[in-house]
């Protein structure tokens, strides 16, 4: 009886239901995420809607912003404003500045501990890594490392802090509990970026001058593979790998090849280069979308970011963002 009445009142109930279900599906599949990009020359921070492929807004941030990271709870955004000699802590929602952290001179890159308690900054000019306590917002320690430290990362299990020294050609394995260098590994010339696999078992290091990426075993701290990056039709001098990211399942690693204007897709099991994707000019840093279905690249001299669909491994769009995009972070 009830069903008959409903059919009488809403004869096209099935259609209505399917519309509601479709809308609900649409709402769940197309989740909005925001891509933050630091603009080195514009002294600004850009927010981009990557689904729409549009620049939402640009806000002034400080002098020469470069390194960029979100806290693990996505509440805070940290931006290294190099020429202001500080790291700014912002509310990730409103982009209001909450604090200025004592980063030391000329901060460029930094790493956040997975528990959100510490922030580690590379001080290139002083050959130091500064440790900042995020609770007190004070520098609590300085670790002497090799000459020109740049790439810096922390293993997801919070055991190792890695600092790569560009001139010393070394990565330093620092125990996060003691802040002491436990071991140094010699790598190819001019190591730029470092990143761990999600299981903390491997460390991937890009070497700008050698045009290679080295895969180090976290237990032995020795290289297990050196991958020579080559692109058909592109001269060797243009292949200068910088940013590196590896997906959660360790199926693929993606490497920004700098002035080669390409991103290399590497099979993280066989270490073979599977594909090379053309992006904007001087591709620098990379970041995954939270669901790891897309990859965002900052293209320094073409003033845009490229969006890569990882299911099809194709570049779908490049969006103009401002002058000299450098760092990239993605908020769900």
């Amino acid at each position, binding site marked *: 009886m009830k069903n008959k009445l409903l059919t009488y009142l809403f004869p096209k109930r099935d259609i209505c239901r399917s519309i509601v279900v479709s809308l609900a599906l649409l709402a769940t599949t197309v989740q909005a995420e925001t891509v933050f990009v630091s603009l080195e020359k514009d002294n600004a921070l850009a927010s981009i809607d990557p689904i729409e492929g549009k620049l939402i807004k640009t806000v002034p941030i400080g002098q020469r912003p470069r390194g960029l990271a979100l806290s693990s709870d996505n509440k805070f955004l940290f931006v290294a404003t190099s020429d202001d000699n500080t790291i700014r802590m912002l509310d990730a929602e409103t982009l209001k500045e909450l604090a200025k952290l004592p980063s030391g001179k000329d901060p460029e890159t930094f790493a956040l501990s997975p528990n959100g308690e510490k922030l580690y900054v590379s001080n290139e000019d002083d050959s130091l890594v500064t440790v900042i306590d995020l609770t007190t917002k004070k520098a609590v320690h300085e670790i002497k490392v090799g000459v020109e430290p740049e790439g810096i990362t922390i293993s997801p299990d919070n055991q190792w802090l890695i600092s790569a020294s560009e001139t010393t050609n070394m990565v330093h394995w620092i125990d996060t509990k003691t802040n002491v260098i436990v071991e140094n590994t010699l790598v190819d010339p001019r190591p730029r970026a470092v990143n761990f696999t999600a299981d903390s078992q491997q460390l991937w290091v890009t070497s700008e001058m050698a045009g290679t990426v080295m895969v180090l075993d976290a237990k032995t701290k020795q290289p297990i593979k050196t991958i020579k990056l080559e692109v*058909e039709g*592109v001269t060797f001098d243009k292949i200068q790998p910088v940013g590196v990211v590896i997906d959660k399942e360790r199926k693929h690693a993606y490497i920004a090849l700098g002035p080669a*204007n390409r991103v290399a897709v590497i099979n993280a099991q066989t270490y073979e280069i599977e594909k090379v994707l*053309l992006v*904007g*000019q001087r591709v620098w840093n990379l970041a995954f979308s939270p669901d790891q279905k897309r990859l965002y690249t900052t293209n320094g001299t073409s003033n845009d970011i490229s969006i890569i669909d990882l299911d099809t491994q194709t570049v*779908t*769009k*490049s969006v103009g963002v401002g002058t000299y995009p450098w760092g990239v972070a993605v908020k769900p």
Partner: protein
Amino acid sequence: MSFLHYWRAMSGIVGRELWRFVTQRERFISALVRPLVWLFVFAAGFRAALGLAISPPYETYILYEVYITPGLCGMIQLFNGMQSSLSMVYDREMGSMRTLLVCPLQRWFLLLSKLLAGTAVSVLQVYVFLAIASLYDIHVPLKGYWMVLPALLLSGLMLGALGLLLSSFIKQLENFAGVMNFVIFPMFFMSTALYPLWKIKESSALLYNLAQYNPFSQAVELTRFALYGQFNLHACLYTLGSFIVCMTIAIIGYNPSKGMMMKKKGGESSNS
């Protein structure tokens, strides 16, 4: 004359042309060799070019071979349009067109059927070319493959009509070399098939204007946009307009009482 007569004549002409193309393996292969040489050899030389600036319909950076693919589709249609229309010079004297022209159907209809037949062949060639290009990692969105069909039909008709127009002026098939040098090559090189308009503008304002108003450029742009699932209204109207103009002049040209046939005859008799 009933509709059935027209239909039978048109399907006969188109079917015959398609059948000829499919069964003549040498013709089929040689039609594909030209664009494939351009793609694999010429474009490969420019692979080192580190991407082209983004211009619609592209939304990101592309390799040079991706850029010239629609241009090579246009090239296939340009050569096919010229060849099939110019073969009418021979056909008119010796082949099937001689019989057709004396049949009781309207002359414009016969010309249009012949044009459609040539266009159908060129569309087939383009699809085979696109299939080979996809094996070379040149992909377009899936919908682009069917959206390009009306664009190819229109551009094929326009280029075929241009060929018809030229063939109405040509006395002998030997003049094809002249058509190559004075029509096909300038049309192809002074277009957006090989370089984007903004790039041509950087080198020469005159070339830029010539390329912009070249109907072949517009046909290529129509194809390019359609391949990426977009509709370029300006290119469509320009191509359609060019087709109407060329077709009208060709029909007049083929009219024995008014057109070039008359003049040709006069010329021939005075020569003899």
